[in-house]
């Protein structure tokens, strides 16, 4: 077999995940999570829910995120979820989920389609009210939704009072980072 000397790059182009601190908030590029979307096939929602419960995979309701070890998931659309798992142990996320759901769900590997930027620290509502429609001040922990952030469609997941994940298209990773970085500099 040919020997490949390829260097893996992060979504933002660096050899290690990007990180920046602006006032009280920190932007961190998260690369240790594998993603896969799970969509129940027509008329098989109950079957998918039962399989997920047996395997300990959370399938939260609309607009929600739920974490269990090792899987976490957020709601995408009716009968459809994005499932997260640690990259180190579940790099081939589709293969990990296929035995659970069989042909009751369509499972698509999504890891390399997205960039995830975690925003942590105090004062996040002040930052996000400048960026998107999500009202972080009133949103409960575990709220997850898709919305627009500077013309880009992104998922915004509130993992805790001081931790929010912004998951956007990898092709516009740099633009997303720029948007968050610029807004943070204007607030803090």
């Amino acid at each position, binding site marked *: 077999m040919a020997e490949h000397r390829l260097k893996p790059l992060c979504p933002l182009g660096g050899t290690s995940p990007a990180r920046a601190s602006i006032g009280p908030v920190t932007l961190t590029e998260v690369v240790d999570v594998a993603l896969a979307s799970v969509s129940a096939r027509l008329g098989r929602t109950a079957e998918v829910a039962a399989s997920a419960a047996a395997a300990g995979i959370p399938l939260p309701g609309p607009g929600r995120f739920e974490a269990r070890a090792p899987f976490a998931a957020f709601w995408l659309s*009716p009968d459809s979820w994005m499932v997260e798992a640690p990259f180190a142990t579940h790099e081939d996320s589709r293969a990990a989920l296929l035995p659970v759901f069989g042909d009751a769900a369509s499972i698509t590997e999504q890891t390399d389609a997205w960039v995830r930027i975690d925003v942590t620290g105090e004062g996040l509502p002040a930052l996000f009210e400048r960026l998107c429609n999500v009202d972080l001040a009133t949103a409960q922990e575990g709220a997850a939704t898709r919305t*627009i952030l500077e013309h880009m469609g992104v998922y915004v997941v509130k993992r805790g009072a001081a931790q929010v994940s912004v998951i956007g298209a990898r092709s516009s990773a740099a633009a997303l980072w720029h948007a968050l970085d610029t807004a943070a500099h204007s607030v803090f």
Partner: protein
Amino acid sequence: MIINHPILGPRDSQEFVYLGDAALIDRPDGLAEGALDTFHDYLYLRDNPAGLHRELWYHEQGDRSWLVVTRNTLTHEITQVELARDVARARGRSK
């Protein structure tokens, strides 16, 4: 304008795309007798009511669901929002 999404609650209209009259759900059978005339009517003839209008909206920057929104074209008041999937199924259109 705010559209009260049946699953996600009130969402800004910025996240939606407008398609048109909800009558587009009633696509005629292309193999039926006189399909040419029915398709002409389906494609070109639209009601333009001053008042309640049922229209299709797409939550493109959200959960990507299609909605049937009942909107008053005189006041822009939205009186009803349903999932287009449910509307189509109720009419025997989809599975």
